[in-house]
């Protein structure tokens, strides 16, 4: 029974991982840029970003997914299911990452910036060599939490009719009137999050100076 459902579940896993990877690769740097602008940017951009973060954190991701896929066509922007999912996830996760990075940035003591100035090191070079590594060190645990949450949140794309791994498992469970596909899907999630946790721990250790 499980064997016959396996190809669709593996196909679902592929979609889940593809969505996860794409969202992570785009939303992490975007979150950093948003955080830099929120901390150091002009006032009007800071206000705009505050509003963006408020909306992203204050409404359910499921609603955001529906808005992007079903709502945007009303203003002439039509996206396929997968790009719509990626777009909504990137917007949502970049907001969370931005808040994490912002917290790390304001946590760096002012004296570190002053030491860079006294040593005649420019903002950009100082940020790259001194400030950002410190921000990364303090924010890695929170980023790790978000990364793991992202793996599980990808299951929300069922609302757009995308066949991610949980949806594939649910279809198999309905077809065979069995809970085994669910158990299998749960095990797959545990394997994926286990590998990611292992990698995150390794990265964290590298930065724990």
């Amino acid at each position: 029974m499980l064997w016959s459902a396996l190809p669709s579940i593996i196909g679902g896993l592929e979609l889940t991982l593809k969505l996860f990877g794409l969202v992570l690769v785009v939303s992490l740097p975007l979150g950093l840029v948003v955080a830099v602008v929120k901390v150091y940017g002009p006032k009007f951009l800071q206000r705009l970003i505050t509003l963006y973060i408020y909306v992203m954190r204050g409404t359910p991701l499921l609603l955001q997914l529906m808005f992007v896929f079903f709502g945007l066509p009303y203003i002439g922007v039509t996206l396929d299911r997968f790009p719509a999912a990626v777009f909504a996830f990137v917007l949502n996760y970049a907001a969370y990452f931005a808040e994490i990075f912002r917290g790390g940035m304001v946590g760096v003591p002012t004296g570190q910036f002053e030491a860079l100035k006294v040593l005649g090191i420019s903002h950009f070079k100082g940020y790259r060599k001194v400030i950002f590594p410190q921000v990364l060190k303090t924010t890695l645990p929170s980023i790790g939490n978000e990364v793991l949450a992202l793996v599980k949140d990808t299951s929300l794309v069922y609302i757009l009719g995308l066949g991610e791994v949980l949806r594939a498992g649910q279809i198999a469970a309905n077809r065979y009137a069995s809970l085994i596909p669910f158990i299998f899907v749960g095990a797959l999630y545990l394997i994926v999050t286990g590998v990611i946790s292992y990698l995150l721990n390794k990265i964290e250790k590298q930065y724990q100076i």
Partner: protein
Amino acid sequence: MLEIDHLGKKMNGIDLIKDFSLTVRKREIVSIVGESGSGKTTFIRVLNQLDVPDEGQIRLDNDVLFTSHESDKKANKKIGLVFQDFQLFPNLTVKENCTLSPILNKDLSKKEAELKADELLKKLAIDDKQAVYPKELSGGQKQRVAIARALMLEPQILCLDEPTSALDHETANRFGELLISIIKNDVGVIMITHDLRFAETFSDRIVSSRQFLNKS
């Protein structure tokens, strides 16, 4: 020779420094003593351009380093500062802390900067710690690294903010001797301190922070 000419600085509308002038020669240690809140730290921050003066001019060997509205881009390298809490970069080793600025600013090649750092760290008796991170150092060791980092830029004036606050009597004395060896390389030192005994032992001149407001 550093000339501080008619310096003025207000904080929240109150004069902390007004019409204050001071000259510091090469090979001279000048201590500034006074009670908390009397503007000592503000003075050293202004000298290092962390705060902008409201009035006055700072000159080094007759060249204007900065005023309230203009600044020589190289002024930061001519006046060095060792912070009270050192502000070493925690993500960099002792040696990297020292070589970062000369390498990033292309003043020296990586090899030259490392050789110079080796030499300075050896002189400051901390060369055995060059591969460790700041959190593994004691207060006195951090201070010596901070001094080495400042000296890497070959400043003509070295400012020290409460350098003995974290040191015991014996280490403070060793530090004083170190200062005397540093000024032999034509460096002038301006030191802010609460430690009158230390100031009297190791300074050429003591200036009271009451003089910031021209009080006797």
